[in-house]
């Protein structure tokens, strides 16, 4: 049975890119331990001979015709962006940690 330590919640917050507050970390730790306890019993019946299912309605993969389309114009694609310049999305610096 997994138990969540405070450090683990902090780490999960980092992985999920959510800057959790101290109060949230404390609350999540308690809640996730209760939830984990209740869902852990799935392991009781998941024996080796049972195959896993990802899609409940399996279909053959199919292709649409390989024809170029323009579902959105450039202006439409940029219309919801927090910041744009010269027809592009503007992002904060991606590499490096200094100001």
């Amino acid at each position, binding site marked *: 049975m997994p138990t969540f330590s405070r450090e683990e919640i902090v780490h999960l917050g980092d992985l999920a890119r959510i800057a959790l507050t101290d109060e949230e970390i404390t609350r999540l730790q308690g809640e996730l331990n209760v939830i984990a306890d209740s869902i852990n019993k799935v392991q009781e019946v998941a024996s080796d001979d049972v195959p896993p*299912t990802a899609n409940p309605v399996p279909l053959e993969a199919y292709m649409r015709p390989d024809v170029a389309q323009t579902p959105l114009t450039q202006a439409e694609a940029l219309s919801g*962006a*927090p910041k744009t310049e010269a027809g592009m999305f503007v992002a904060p610096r991606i590499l490096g940690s200094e100001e």
Partner: protein
Amino acid sequence: MSISTETAALVKLSAAEQAAKVKAGEVTSRELVEAHLQVIESAEPSIKAFLKVSGDVALEQADAFDAKSAEDKAKLPELAGVPIAIKDMIVTKGIETTAASKILEGWVPPYDATVIEKLKAAGMPILGKTNLDEFAQGSSTEHSAYQTTHNPWDTERVPGGSGGGSASAVAAFEAPLALGTDTGGSIRQPGSLTGTVGVKPTYGGVSRFGAIAMASSLDQIGPVSRTVLDSALLQEVIGGHDERDSTSIPEGPRPMVAAAREGLKRDLKGLKVGLVKELDGEGFQPGVEARFNEAVAKLKEMGAEVTEVSCPHFPYALGAYYIIMPSEVSSNLARYDGMRYGLRVMPPDGVPQTAANMMAYTREAGFGDEVKRRIILGTYALSAGYYDAWYGSAQKVRTLIINDFKAAFEKVDVLVSPTSPSTAFKFGEKMDDPLAMYMNDIATIPANLAGVPAMSIPAGLSDDGLPVGFQLIAPQQRDEVMYKPAAALEAALEEDWGGPIWTSLKTPWLGE
């Protein structure tokens, strides 16, 4: 604004009846839209079902329909001209779409969902966007970042969730029809709590293109209405193959309207009905049990053969769901990164102004408690070292549940259970206890895990005067199989009640 007797009578008609009036030339689509906009204005202060009312858009669409020639109108589906409300989980070009989250506040989609394109082509005006739990995560609509929707049967109580807005809007006569999304019961459980009909089609039966993704292997768009026939009519409009959704079933919609009309004859001779042993008993309110058992007796009276069937792995469904769903949530909601659309919050002074930090502060500010809880849980379930124990096991349980359904459907045609263990609860009652909230969906979750179609119809009022829901479940890609007994049961129960369930509903917002 006071509602005239004529307007009140008009909005109380079923969608099929409203459509017939349009067809007969007794009312225009514009008049239908105007009537519902009046009711929305009058009801919203107490119900709060809508996040956004798109009156101008609806009137424009209605006028375009009314201006068509009789010949062109005749080519459209039966519901042509009848307006509809849309859960704000489905994108609408030019109409703000938020999923009830702060992270999408102000977002105006540059495209329509496939179902919206189909509604527009069918001449069905869009009244507005309805409230929900943030990103459809919850069972009471209390997790909306914007407002709390009230249950028309008792405005001190929740309408269920996540689609509480769509269910309340239809129950309160603000709209004759609505669309919802159902991942673990988000159409059926609100249907149960508000005395309306809600349908989760077979997975892949309705295109998910333009449905904001929550848990992609479980999500399904479906109808919300006041009658079984109305849901059948709507499901035939929105269903069918879509090449933009790779999980969309190649075959077209099933003959659901014909099945619903056949059901109105109330002859169920030869139909085998299975009571799911594991979806009854402990944890279900006595009033819910009583109405359920009476409804089962009605099915017998109409000739159905009723037997008990066991689905031994259903007790593991909730656990499997709360692993698979948050895992898919954590992956799907990774797209809200402050880069291309939606909220962007830069880190505070003293914290490096990098993209990674911007994402972390944006997501901290933009997501609510329940969404964060599920993302963290899902991130854990998918992380190295735990993947096999949790996610792998949950996918195996999914196989076992599918096998339970297959075995059950070898013995019976349709399965039944109460939709929700309880009637509508009070605001705040389950907000501090995530597990208690999750238990609301105990009877609805197995259908999502197995991809089978299921629906909830009103079974009557419990001792507390609140609606109880009756769930019917059919085999995959056989949605019509549940529509016939559902329509038959609805007709039989309404005869007992002396009219539809809403004849017991007090509607002060209609000036009554």
